[in-house]
């Protein structure tokens, strides 16, 4: 789960990590009010969306008067922001963060993230703040400092020293400030089961202090249960409505561009099914994993979500029953045809646990439009043919 910059900064503040003063608003009127309250003389008007690259996309701008705050708030609020991290359609800006301008002497990059190979979090830092860090990694990898932190020992001063010297900080106070900042940032990461924290830019002020000018945070969904305060920060308007709806029923759904709706159990087989369709000259309309506890209701819901997409010309149900029992899926398909108007061919391939019973159920149900696939290859071929009108 991801959160907004203003929310990340609320968490930073709790841990004593310096951030500029700011107020989140949802209207132009409140934006001006917030600016008045902050006092100025310089403000930053920032679009709040779950994506990086906002500045380059025109979603972060500097204002030198209240009038300018109003103009910019008007301009940014309601705009559709396209950055290299959003889709081509971009994201609608519904929230703004009005922030005090900061005294910037130099900009850094700082993040904490899990290194899957080392199996522990690492602190990653660079003197190339404010830049696209992927480009830094590509062009000047020597400018990136990486310090792994073994959770068994936690953050130690030496971690901080490696970071400070790695960034070329020579002033002792600045070194101390950096060590303190990194220590608190690691605490934020560990305490809250974060998946990643990224501050770009982290700025050094004229006084040699470090301030988080930005803040991105993502969390381990599996750990949200023990962080109700974080779970509450979820902004459903930033997520795809169909995906959210599907998740309520234990379905994992991602919309794609193609014509063949897919309903599969298990993420791996779901991807493998999409790959097979693609390989046979068809195009998958979605990824849909019905999960391990599929029943009639969830399968019916799956059909409903798939059929919402007008591009869908055929549906391929591919189930290899392990924990999922095929007879349950078969009943779900029958149920779905009663609840939803399934007006496209449905190709069904059921294998594994209780597959013979499932075949019997489907046969007796006598559903028009239903085609049986013998195995993965056969089912995919039939789905591709059906989508092409054959």
């Amino acid at each position, binding site marked *: 789960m991801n959160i907004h910059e203003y929310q990340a900064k609320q968490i930073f503040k709790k841990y004593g990590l310096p951030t500029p003063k700011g107020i989140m608003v949802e209207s132009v009127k409140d934006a001006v009010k917030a600016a008045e309250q902050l006092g100025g003389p310089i403000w930053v008007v920032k679009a709040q969306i779950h994506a990086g690259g906002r500045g380059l996309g025109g979603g972060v701008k500097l204002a030198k008067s209240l009038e300018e705050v109003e103009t910019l708030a008007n301009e940014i609020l309601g705009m559709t922001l396209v950055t290299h*991290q959003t889709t081509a359609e971009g994201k609608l800006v519904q929230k703004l963060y009005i922030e005090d301008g900061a005294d910037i002497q130099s900009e850094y990059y700082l993040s904490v993230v899990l290194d899957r190979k080392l199996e522990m979090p690492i602190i990653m830092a660079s003197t190339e703040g404010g830049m696209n860090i992927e480009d830094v990694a590509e062009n000047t990898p020597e400018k990136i400092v990486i310090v792994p932190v073994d959770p068994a020992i936690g953050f130690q001063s030496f971690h901080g020293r490696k970071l400070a010297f790695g960034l070329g900080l020579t002033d002792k106070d600045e070194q101390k400030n950096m060590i303190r900042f990194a220590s608190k940032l690691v605490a934020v990461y560990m305490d809250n089961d974060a998946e990643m924290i990224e501050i770009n830019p982290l700025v050094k002020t004229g006084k040699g202090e470090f301030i988080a000018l930005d803040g991105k945070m993502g969390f381990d969904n599996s750990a949200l249960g023990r962080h109700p305060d974080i779970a509450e920060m979820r902004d459903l308007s930033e997520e795809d409505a169909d995906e959210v709806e599907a998740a309520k029923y234990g379905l994992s759904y991602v919309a794609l561009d193609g014509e063949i709706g897919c309903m599969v159990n*298990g993420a791996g087989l779901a991807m493998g099914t999409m*790959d097979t369709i693609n390989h046979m000259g068809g195009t998958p309309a979605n990824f849909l994993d019905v999960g391990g506890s599929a029943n009639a209701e969830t399968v019916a819901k799956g059909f409903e979500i798939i059929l919402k997409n007008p591009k869908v010309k055929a549906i391929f149900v591919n189930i290899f029953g392990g924990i999922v029992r095929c007879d349950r899926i078969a009943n779900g398909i029958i149920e779905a045809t009663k609840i939803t108007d399934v007006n496209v061919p449905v190709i069904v391939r059921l294998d594994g646990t209780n597959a013979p019973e499932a075949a019997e159920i489907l046969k007796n149900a006598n559903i028009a439009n239903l085609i049986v696939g013998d195995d993965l290859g056969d089912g995919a071929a039939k789905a591709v043919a059906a989508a092409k009108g054959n």
Partner: protein
Amino acid sequence: MSILVNKDSKVIVQGFTGKEGTFHAEQCLAYGTKIVGGVTPNKGGQVHLDKPVFNTVDEAVQTTGATVSMIFVPPAFVGDAVMEAAEAGIELAVIITEGAPVKDMQMAKAHATKHGMMTIGPNCPGVITAEECKIGIMPGMIFKKGNVGLISKSGTLTYEGANQVVKEGFGITTAVGIGGDPIIGLSYKQILPMFEADPETECIVMIGEIGGDLEIQAAALIKEQITKPVVAFIAGQTAPKGKTMGHAGAIVSGSAGTAAEKMAALEAAGVTVVVSPAEIGAAVTKAMAKISK
């Protein structure tokens, strides 16, 4: 022969008396797995599925001599359960539970390693040595005995792969579902050499996915150490670009972890890479025909 487990492996179940634990322990017993007991705190002394229940893993190990644990406890308790097993002297923990916090798994795996315990999973179908020992949630009837070793990140693709191998007239030595979480136990790198050393395994099916770089590491190892034919499939060639907010993850792994990248690395290592899981069976048949020549 086989790898990791066989008909003599003594297995306990952590989370024995819960709904999932009970259902799957019953299935494993029916398959022939030598389950010698289970652990559920405060239910010690009871008998469940005709097997003794213990309060702690220590007690279970001392009383039954178990060396393998199958873990079904709820996600929030997985880390704790793994570390308890490690300290009790369990040699292999198979973690079935889905949704264990990543931080817990970092700690648990580090602790397991320290105590010399191997782990499989979490969030995986488990491990099965055909017609001898099933530790997990896979449908046992698919896995007929034979000479093909199988290793996969994905549960249902494990079944799909095994089913095709059997339909082609071959069978499985051992199949291992390693799971696809950010932190997992045994991976390709450890299991491929086990298959190489197993005299009964003649061919290996390896199923991977997009994300991370375990398959790239596997490719390097195959090139150096594996002489048996390997058939591979990488799921996710058509998957959309991941919806990530920061960039840090991709940079750390040093690669984007795309299917194309992994397929190329495996091909360069001499692996037969198929573009669809529907082609696994035919590719195995071809590989086996070459061996018998």
